[in-house]
């Protein structure tokens, strides 16, 4: 039997009914196995999963719910092309989207009166704005934590800076009217929970009202002047640049203005939280000693050359990439070719707008034959720089902004 055939046989056995028969209740504990579930784990993910609208060069971390990251050398563009923007799904995206019927409801304890808008109403009634916004997954870099942290093991590529177009959340909130006691907003989306329970909310996070009312916080219907890619939230997305990407709700249907910190799924417990004070690696931190992540930390990537470059003797080459610092600006960019002993300052551009990443570049010449590592280090406007080793350990492995390193050789 060929590999492919055997795999097909394997797949054909995957329906749970058949499984219960072949495996038997003693193995599955079948009485607890929800009827509506198909064991997706039995699907061969080595048969390359195709992500709608995405390059097959993205590295798939999880085939369901889909999570995929971009190798850093593919992030070289100033504006990340749509097919190269990473994906982090928490549940199952909505399958049939009718843009004409799609609505966004603004409600919650702290609105004067709830209101619902169609997408066309949003387009017609409010001014449009476009911003390049850096969105980074809170767990980007998790793969390096020691002891390991659970969840998708992101390398460097859970980040992108694309052009978002839509209306300002603050304009919409002003139209609806918010009360003085508003402290937080929380989003809801149209994705569904992996357990198959249609009433279970997958993820509902948000930001304090101050961040919600910033100019750059958008309700967006376009990315890079096109419809938002299906996996990045089509047809409507909340975008909060510079904060964990999980605050930018996809497939947006509702925003609640809360009179307290929002308490939706993945706001509480250990999700998207770090210890209130530094802890030794491996510490069990009680929930009440954890605080919500707000702005992402200063960070940079080398997008050119790709790691592994062999440079001819005497040759020089450009090294370049992007740097960003959450809500702040990056004020200095440096690289080292001698394992951090000396540092050279790079040319650093201003961001296109607030919360967009900044381009940097430098010409490099390796002194002699041998193996080198290029280390990149950004410093934000408050003087806070990237660490060379892992930053403070935290139980869920967030906020790893350790310096990006690539290997190069002179032949």
């Amino acid at each position: 039997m060929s590999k492919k055939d055997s795999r097909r046989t394997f797949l054909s056995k995957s329906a749970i009914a058949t499984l219960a028969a072949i495996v038997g209740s003693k193995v599955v504990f079948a009485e607890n196995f929800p009827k509506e579930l198909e064991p997706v784990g039995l699907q061969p993910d080595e048969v390359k999963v195709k992500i709608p609208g995405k390059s097959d060069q993205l590295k798939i971390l999880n085939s369901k719910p889909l999570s995929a990251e971009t190798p850093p050398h593919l992030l070289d563009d100033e504006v990340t092309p749509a097919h190269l923007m990473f994906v982090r799904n928490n549940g199952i995206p909505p399958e049939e989207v009718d843009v004409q019927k799609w609505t966004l409801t603004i409600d919650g304890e702290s609105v004067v009166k709830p209101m619902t808008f169609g997408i066309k109403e949003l387009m017609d009634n409010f001014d449009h704005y476009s911003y390049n916004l850096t969105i980074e997954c809170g767990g980007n870099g998790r793969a390096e934590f020691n002891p390991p942290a659970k969840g998708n093991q992101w390398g460097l590529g859970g980040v992108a800076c694309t052009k978002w177009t839509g209306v300002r959340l603050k304009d919409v909130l002003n139209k609806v009217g918010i009360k003085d006691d508003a402290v937080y907003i929380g989003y809801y989306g149209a994705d569904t929970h992996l357990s198959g329970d249609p009433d279970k909310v997958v993820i509902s996070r948000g930001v304090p009202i101050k961040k919600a009312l910033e100019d750059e916080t958008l309700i967006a219907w376009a990315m890079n002047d096109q419809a938002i890619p299906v996996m990045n939230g089509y047809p409507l997305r909340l975008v909060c640049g510079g904060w964990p990407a999980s605050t930018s709700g996809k497939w947006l249907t509702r925003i609640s203005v809360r009179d307290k910190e929002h308490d939706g799924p993945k706001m509480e417990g250990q999700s998207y939280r770090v210890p209130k004070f530094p802890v030794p690696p491996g510490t069990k931190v009680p929930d009440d000693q954890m605080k919500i992540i707000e702005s992402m930390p200063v960070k940079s990537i080398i997008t050119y050359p790709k790691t592994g470059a062999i440079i001819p003797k005497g040759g020089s080459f450009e090294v370049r990439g992007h740097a960003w610092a959450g809500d702040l600006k990056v004020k200095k960019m440096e690289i080292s070719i001698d394992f951090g002993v000396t540092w050279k300052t790079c040319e650093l551009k201003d961001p296109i707008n607030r919360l967009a990443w900044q381009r940097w570049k430098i010409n490099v010449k390796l002194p002699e034959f041998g193996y080198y590592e290029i280390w990149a280090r950004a410093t934000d406007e408050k003087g806070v720089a990237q660490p060379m080793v892992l930053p403070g350990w935290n139980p869920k492995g967030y906020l790893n902004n350790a310096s990006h390193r690539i290997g190069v050789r002179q032949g």
Partner: protein
Amino acid sequence: MEELSKKELVLKQAKLAINFGVGVIAFASIWVFQFTIFPDFFKPEPTIVEFIPDSTEPESVSYFELDSADIENGIHVPTGLIVDDGCQDVMVTCGACHSLDLVTQNRATRDGWKEIIVWMQETQKLWDLGEKEVVILDYLAKNYAPENTGRRKNIENIEWYNL
């Protein structure tokens, strides 16, 4: 005289054979009758018996076998799981909601895996795993244990090319 006794002998044997046949039929019908009403009467308690792959026990369901064509270097290629005791249980249970990529990507101690399971039970609708929990934890703790990677690893798997 001789003839008669021969005849009688044959007749006797025939009677014996018929009686035996009737007996067998009667016994069989009683057996079938009780079987339809009390199917489990003569069977052992349906408690957790370990499955023996090619057991001839009439009601033992055929064991869920991995196709050897799918196994390469101890890895079950379609799922990426390490082939070991409990692999099938993990495949079926832990692949129900999400792909097994979430299992193969992660490393944790036994306590760590237990915490992940409890977290999914408290927040993600994972059910009580019953007696399978031990099998699954044994498998995960053995095959997906953490290694100490220090404060930072060397850059690994560089593919060299001429710039």
